[in-house]
């Protein structure tokens, strides 16, 4: 029941919000916050109850008939891979609500409803064990995100929202076709059952894999289908960016892990070198893009392209280190990029500009902001002692085992990452405080610290105690690798 509750609480809260008059913004915010905290509590209960030694299969499973004629079931469950993604999603929602406390003034009720529905949708994707259920969640969450960008976003929000929506839908509709084709082939939507059936091979398998892969690659986003991301990120409100970077991008990777690769192992292995190369191009290309950006949010968006390239690279190394690193790095990226967006949001709230050139010398003015931003920057560039390093290390180790050149070229991304992030930091925080607006800027307040410090804590914690994380994921990855081998990958 706990998974269902985690899924339902946001929806229930959203319905509750509908009953509160729309001008009572404080009540709306508090209700939404409590709802999201309750979700977080339930997801933490999942984390607490999770048994790392459970062996093969999923935990907390629930299975009910949903659409009997298609044998679609409401079938949910989690394993080590989805566990932390669920927790991450649940964690970022209260943070998103908190960070919008002051910045979102219009249509407060709708905003929180969209945010909560988005949470439900995202968690649903991570827990669904029925292909069609997964697809339903996958699409359901698009609409709130679309509205978040389109209604509460910046000046170019509509264009960005439409681009985001059509881009992602184009991919997922093709996947929809592949899902139906697969259903025709296997006669079931149950993920576990499909794992047991002989996989689709040959051209059909390849085409289906490509349809899945395109959809997931757009979400990741993998070069060259990444161009929606900078627009969506730049225009989205802070909360939207946080969720987008923190969770939505992970859906693509998760889709690869759970569906695309085990369903079509033959095609996946065939495509792996190509996808790895795309990932590496993405790593370098995304990093290079950061050099040219004037808008800090856009810069971080492109850095996401680069970072997610690493994640894909690790996954397609198809070895324990790579996959482990991939799962870890998903969470890491959610935390650190999420934090970066929060920080930029905080700056934007104060200065109403995101152009890097408008800043400089903030370090003495806002020391707390400067310190947290710096730690986050370090986490983002993968400094040991913080979380980013462990993930990147494992990914590169995995990639190295696959092909030495993967690691070598991907490693360039680390160097470039250091350059653009430190330059960004320098341009914002160092130098003379020569503008009056900057000199008068306020430092972070208690509310902002309340959602930033936990993230910083997580960065340090995961940087030092990653085995706590990996031990929970390890058995699932072993199962996954075995599955891949059995299915001819």
């Amino acid at each position, binding site marked *: 029941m706990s998974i269902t509750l985690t899924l339902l609480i946001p929806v229930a809260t959203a319905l509750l919000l509908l009953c509160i008059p729309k001008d009572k913004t404080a009540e709306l915010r508090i209700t939404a916050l409590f709802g999201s905290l309750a979700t977080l509590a339930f997801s933490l209960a999942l984390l607490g109850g999770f048994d790392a030694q459970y062996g093969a299969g999923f935990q907390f499973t629930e299975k009910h008939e949903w659409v009997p004629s298609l044998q679609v079931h409401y079938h949910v469950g989690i394993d080590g891979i989805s566990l932390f993604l669920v927790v991450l999603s649940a964690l970022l929602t209260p943070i998103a609500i908190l960070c919008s406390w002051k910045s979102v003034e219009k249509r407060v009720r709708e905003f929180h409803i969209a945010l909560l529905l988005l949470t439900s949708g995202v968690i649903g994707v991570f827990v669904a064990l029925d292909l069609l259920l997964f697809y339903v969640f996958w699409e359901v969450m698009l609409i709130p995100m679309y509205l978040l960008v389109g209604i509460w976003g910046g000046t170019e929000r509509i264009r960005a929202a439409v681009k985001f929506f059509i881009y992602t839908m184009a991919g997922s509709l093709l996947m929809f076709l592949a899902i139906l084709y697969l259903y025709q082939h296997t006669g079931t939507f149950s993920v576990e059952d499909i794992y047991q059936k002989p996989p689709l091979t040959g051209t059909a398998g390849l085409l289906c894999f490509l349809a899945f892969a395109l959809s997931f690659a757009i979400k990741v986003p993998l070069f060259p289908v990444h161009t929606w991301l900078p627009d969506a990120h730049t225009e989205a409100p802070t909360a939207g960016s946080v969720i987008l970077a923190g969770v939505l991008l992970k859906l693509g990777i998760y889709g690869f892990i759970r569906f695309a690769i085990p369903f079509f192992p033959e095609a996946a292995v065939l495509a792996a070198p190509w996808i790895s190369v795309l990932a590496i191009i993405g790593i370098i*290309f995304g990093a290079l893009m950061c050099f040219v950006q004037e808008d800090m949010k856009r810069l971080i968006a492109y850095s996401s392209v680069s970072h997610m390239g690493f994640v894909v690279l690790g996954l397609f190394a198809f070895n324990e280190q790579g996959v482990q690193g991939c799962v870890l790095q998903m969470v890491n990226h959610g935390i650190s990029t999420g934090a970066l967006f929060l920080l930029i949001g905080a700056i934007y709230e104060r200065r109403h500009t995101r152009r890097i050139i408008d800043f400089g010398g903030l370090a003495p003015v806002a020391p707390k902001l400067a310190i947290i931003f710096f730690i986050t920057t370090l986490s983002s560039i993968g400094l040991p002692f913080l979380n980013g390093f462990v993930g990147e290390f494992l990914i590169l180790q995995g990639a190295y085992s696959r092909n030495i050149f993967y690691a070598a070229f991907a490693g360039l991304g680390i160097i470039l990452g*250091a350059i653009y992030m430190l330059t960004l930091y320098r341009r914002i925080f160092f130098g003379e405080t020569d503008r009056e607006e900057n000199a008068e800027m306020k430092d972070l307040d208690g509310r902002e610290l309340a959602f930033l410090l936990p993230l910083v804590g997580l960065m340090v914690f995961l940087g030092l105690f990653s085995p706590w994380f990996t031990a929970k994921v390890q058995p699932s990855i072993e199962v996954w690798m075995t599955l891949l081998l059995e299915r001819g990958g």
Partner: protein
Amino acid sequence: MDKWIFLIPLLPFLGFLVNGLLGRRLGDRAVAIIGCASVAGAFAISVASFMQVYDAKPDTFLQQDFGAWIQAGDLSVSFGLIIDSLSGVMCLVVTGVGLLIHVYSTGYMKGDAGYYRFFAYLNLFMASMLVLVTADNIVLMFLGWEGVGLCSYLLIGFWYKGLANCSAGIKAFVVNRIGDLGFLLGIFAIWAACGSFEFSAIVAEAPNIDSSAAFWICLLLFVGACGKSAQIPLYVWLPDAMAGPTPVSALIHAATMVTSGVYLLARLGPLFDAAPGVLTIVATIGALTALLAALIAFSQNDIKKVLAYSTVSQLGYMFLAAGMGAYSVAIFHVVTHAFFKALLFLGAGAVIHSLHHEQDMRRMGGLRRRLPWTFALYLIGGLALSGFPLTAGFFSKDEILHIAHSGFGNIEPRSVLWSIGLLTALLTAFYTFRQIALVFFGSYRGASEPQASEESAAHGLELDKVKESPLSMRIPLIVLAALSLTGGFLAIPHFLQPGIEIPEDGKISGLIIGGIVSIAGIAAALTIYLRFPQALKGFLSSAPGKLAHRLSSRKFYVDEIYQKLIIRPIAIIAEICFYVVDRLIIDIILVHGSSFGASALGHLLRRLQDGRTPTYAAWFLAGAILVLAVTLWAAGG
């Protein structure tokens, strides 16, 4: 003692946390005490551990393991610390010199707004450096490795209001990262070859690794070492790093951090022994770096830049030694170099402090009367650097030259490298005393000479206002001077490699040659700069002299070459990628193009609907005929 070695890095780290988080409220005095005390504690424990290792039989060590840090499948990295003879020596140097520099800094940084921040960073640096030194596996070492890089970045850009300082910090960090990528790849290769990250396991496995794998592993690791230890081609960051406060230059960019590359090679000595090809490269690069940096040091006008290039040059010596397989000799030079170069930097710091942050030697001169203590101590440092007989530098440097000349273990003598080394020794003595001559002899030029650059803060300080620095700065100098004079008598090579056999024949003659070269250099410099400055000017205005001077003072245009060949192209590629690939090809042509195509098609088809009924009927008829035709055709076919 082995229960407590974790405190060696932890104490400074706690110091960092306390100073960093509470420093602003604690006040400068408390900050200084915490900063120094934490390092002193680490020093005490290092001494104690070292004594334990020293007393015991060879090959003993203290080890402590705190469980896993990274774990994935069969890959595992632990928080494990080890103190053996090598790391013991390094710990002593790091904590010892570090302590002195901390004490020095209490005086040097007095009154700076970022006082607590400075000590926090320094403590963090100590912690990272000590992790680097005491790590029992290469990944943990990498943690320290990156940590010191970070602190280096922070401290170079310590005065962050000057953007140039920050840029220098970024340059240091990024160039280091280039090396770190090599290091990382080397780590991966090690794991692929040995299945473990622990030094003991790697060393044990080293003889079994096939030679090409060993070659690549060592080459990659050496790239890492090049970055951190400022060797060709990655040395460019170190001179710029002088933007940081002088104690930082002394501690990080002379005594400790920059030597960690040498330490890495020493740590994995047996592995490098399995890759003789790489050793050749190491030795060659080392010798070339030594020469190149010495040539550049010739014409620098910034007091710290001279020392910085000298550091690069001395590091070259260390790599030359390591490249000969004589890791212990390299470490020996690391130790002595730490003493005298720290002394020189701190002395230079004292000068700078006294001159209110003037660094341009052209605006100095004649200071020996106003700053007698500083002059004396600086002179000792200069002598040691020049390898004046019986000083620390004399022994360690000449041991290196001697090995290069006579060969070591299985390594053949490399006489070319030896001659380069010897030439460099001459140059070293020359530029060192050129500096001493410019700073301390002659007449004071600070009030008259126009400012060389806008950055120098002093505005024509009068000579009689120049004052000797406070006691807190002088005491560390005295200690270091003592060590620079006596450090050469430490039998470090024999302690580190108990079975070491340094070939005896020709050793004495080598020492004599070294001594002569050093004295010759010193004499030449003093003669030229003090007696015949006009002749020098004459030479410099002649065509070859101009060329040589320009090459040297413009650092052989290496920065410009990098700028043109690497940085500019990357920037251009980034612009092209953004505007052409990302914006134009992907976004506009492909993404918007497809939507535009759909719209255009829609627009075209829309014109079918022209509003006239007969047209509609005609389309209908055409459709009907088509359907009929297709049906009948399909039936026939």
